[in-house]
């Protein structure tokens, strides 16, 4: 038996199929992953993501520390509650993890990191923080529930403490403390909605309230196809410590300016940037019938071979789609993917594939 979130019994009662995920017993689906996926695109769905690791950084040295720790520039966060997506790199520019950092107070920032990387992340943060006036405090007593979809906001607001009056005005990528909850207008699906950190003891009542309001429980299976359609990377699959953000479609998250900001991995990234990255990170749409899968070979005529990092079937588009790392020299939009011993035709596209319920690419 693995770790259980405060919603474990609620998942069982709702018919979840539970699987091991990074040592946690988590719902993969509650009957139909595809129907859950559609519910998020069309109405509203909720995900238990309490397995994710919440880490508070507290102290007078937090901002200088984060300037050094993260590849994105934490000085973009000047208004309280603002959130930033960033990679945390090693000295070689490899990605230790990707995370969201929230600016709560000048002496209090909150990180949300992946559960599969929890131990190495905490060890790295502690080690790198040694020279700074900062305390690293994990928050294992917080549950986390994501509510996503076009109806998510109207379903969530009445169920928040103080009826969510203050949360109604939250802008995209901002969070707000309401009592001991942190309500953030963020997500991993390409839809509007909230990610909500709340005390374990409040989690089940909130979850049941959402269910009663018609929000559909969704498992990690739908979460994966939704984030893939949204063109969002999955750590450990699309990038890891052996590759940099520059070859993972995450160059936009590197805070190059100001040039004098010294962050871990900067020198290696600059060398890679100046030499020209060897690979690029692209979206793929399969033209033939079949399903794209992780690690399938991608052949680009005249440019060599690449590999699919995340592949699946897009329920919204009714096509197989993927994220892939291909040689930088690849030109044009034609390629082939080796699927179960056959070469199938695919097209290079720019992710995202779907945003706010709408296809972002042409499907003939």
């Amino acid at each position: 038996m693995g770790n259980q979130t405060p919603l474990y019994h609620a998942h069982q009662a709702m018919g979840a199929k539970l699987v091991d995920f990074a040592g946690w017993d988590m719902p993969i689906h509650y009957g139909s992953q595809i129907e859950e996926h559609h519910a998020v695109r069309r109405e509203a769905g909720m995900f238990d993501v309490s397995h994710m690791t919440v880490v508070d950084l507290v102290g007078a040295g937090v901002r200088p520390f984060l300037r050094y720790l993260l590849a994105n520039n934490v000085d973009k966060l000047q208004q309280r509650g603002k959130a930033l997506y960033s990679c945390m790199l090693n000295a070689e520019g490899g990605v230790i993890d990707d995370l969201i950092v929230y600016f709560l107070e000048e002496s209090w920032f909150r990180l949300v990191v992946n559960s599969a990387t929890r131990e190495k992340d905490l060890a790295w943060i502690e080690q790198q923080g040694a020279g700074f006036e900062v305390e690293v405090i994990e928050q294992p007593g917080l549950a986390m529930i994501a509510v996503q979809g076009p109806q998510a906001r109207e379903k969530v607001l009445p169920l928040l403490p103080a009826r969510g009056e203050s949360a109604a005005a939250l802008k995209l990528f901002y969070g707000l403390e309401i009592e001991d909850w942190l309500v953030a207008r963020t997500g991993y699906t390409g839809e509007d909605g909230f990610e909500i950190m709340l005390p374990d003891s409040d989690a089940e009542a909130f979850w049941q309230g959402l269910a009663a309001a018609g929000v559909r429980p969704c498992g990690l299976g739908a979460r994966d196809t939704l984030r893939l359609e949204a063109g969002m990377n999955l750590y450990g699959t699309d990038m890891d410590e052996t590759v940099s953000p520059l070859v993972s479609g995450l160059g936009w998250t590197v805070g190059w300016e100001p040039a004098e900001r010294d962050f871990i991995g900067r020198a290696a990234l600059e060398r890679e940037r100046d030499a020209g990255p060897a690979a690029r990170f692209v979206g793929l749409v399969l033209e033939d019938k079949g399903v794209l899968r992780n690690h399938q070979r991608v052949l680009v005529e005249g440019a060599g071979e690449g590999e699919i990092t995340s592949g699946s079937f897009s329920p919204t588009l009714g096509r197989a789609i993927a994220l892939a790392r291909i040689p930088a020299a690849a030109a044009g939009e034609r390629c082939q993917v080796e699927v179960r011993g056959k070469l199938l035709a695919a097209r290079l596209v720019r992710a995202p594939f779907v945003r706010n319920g709408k296809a972002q690419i042409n499907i003939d």
Partner: protein
Amino acid sequence: MSNTPDDLKYSKSHEWLRGNADGTVTLGITDHAQDQLGDLVYVEVPEAGRELQAQEACAVVESVKAASDVYTPIAGTVVEGNETLADTPEAVNNDAYGAGWLLRLKPADAAALDGLMDASAYQAFLESE
């Protein structure tokens, strides 16, 4: 408890087989198998005329999460594949023993079905797995 109709034969790799009046055999995957796979999004069936050996991979069913081969427990010649599944793979989830059939074949040995599990033996096999 999985649905296992009494009039069918079953394999340990979770295929079902139905002996038809014309001597052909219809093959699909069991309700248990579709439940384990989850929502199917792509199904590949063999073309008519293909000769199949016993235990040969004869179809592919792909769910959102994985691709799985389907094996025929008996040898024979494919009479037809269920081409409608190209557009309606979910029929395998919704109606595994009906509209979700995968292929029909003419067995090499008319008595081949006799060696397979009946519904109660398959149920016992599922419980032991």
